[in-house]
């Protein structure tokens, strides 16, 4: 078992910031994260995938965690740990963290009106990054997006 402290010494913080929970602010987070990873080999379509995952995770945090209360921030931390890019997005949600979910939505059922047309967010996130983890405690939920920084610079 590795020592968490020694693993952290290999972490490089790229950005840490927060935004109010207001509709549309996911775009601000997407662009700020894109700027923060500018020195990494994540470009083109890989960068677009990362931005979509970050945008959807931020929307979930603002909507489900913070109920779009502007005074409640969404906190974002971007760092490289070993050979992984980690983007952690934290809200002030309480109760058990949402399940990982992200199964393929049933489009036929949505088109037939048997399911809400919504419910694409977690699926998109899981499809856009290499791994996704959701954790939480009494006053916070965090979604962690992981992109392996291999030879191709991401998924």
């Amino acid at each position: 078992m590795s020592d968490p402290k020694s693993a952290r010494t290999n972490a490089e913080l790229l950005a840490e910031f927060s935004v109010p929970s207001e509709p549309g602010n996911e775009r601000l987070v997407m662009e700020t994260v894109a700027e923060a990873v500018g020195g990494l080999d994540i470009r083109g379509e890989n960068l677009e995938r990362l931005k979509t995952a970050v945008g959807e995770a931020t929307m979930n945090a603002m909507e489900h965690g913070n109920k779009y209360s502007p005074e409640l921030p969404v906190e974002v931390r971007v760092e490289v740990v070993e050979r992984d890019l980690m983007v952690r997005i934290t809200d002030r949600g309480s109760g058990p963290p949402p399940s990982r979910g992200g199964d393929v939505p049933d489009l036929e059922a949505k088109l037939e009106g048997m399911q809400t047309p919504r419910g694409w967010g977690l699926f998109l996130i899981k499809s856009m990054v290499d791994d996704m983890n959701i954790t939480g405690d009494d006053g916070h939920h965090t979604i962690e997006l992981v992109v392996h920084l291999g030879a191709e610079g991401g998924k």
Partner: protein
Amino acid sequence: MAVRHLNVEVRLDTGVAVLDLMGEINGFAEEALNTAYAEADAKETNTILLNFEEVDYINSTGIALIVGLLAKARATHKRLLACNLSEHYVEIFNITRLSDFMSVFPDEESAVEEASVS
């Protein structure tokens, strides 16, 4: 960062109702999208084309709005097509399976041509 609200213009191209979408397709886009779709639906055509050339952002709420349009089209037996999506959004239309139910074309010309022969 200011939200770019969606503007939509509706026109006819060789018997196809074209919705020129300009801006972001997100939760703010619902009224503009549905109003424009109703205008296109009222035209005497069986094919409605969504032109994404001036769209730079579609989020999951926007995907849900497009699902809603597709459901309306199916209910009235109209064809809904898409064109000028970026490479990234073509991928998203593929993984969400939207492209299984609405053909995606690289440009308006090829979409209209396909509509005229089928």
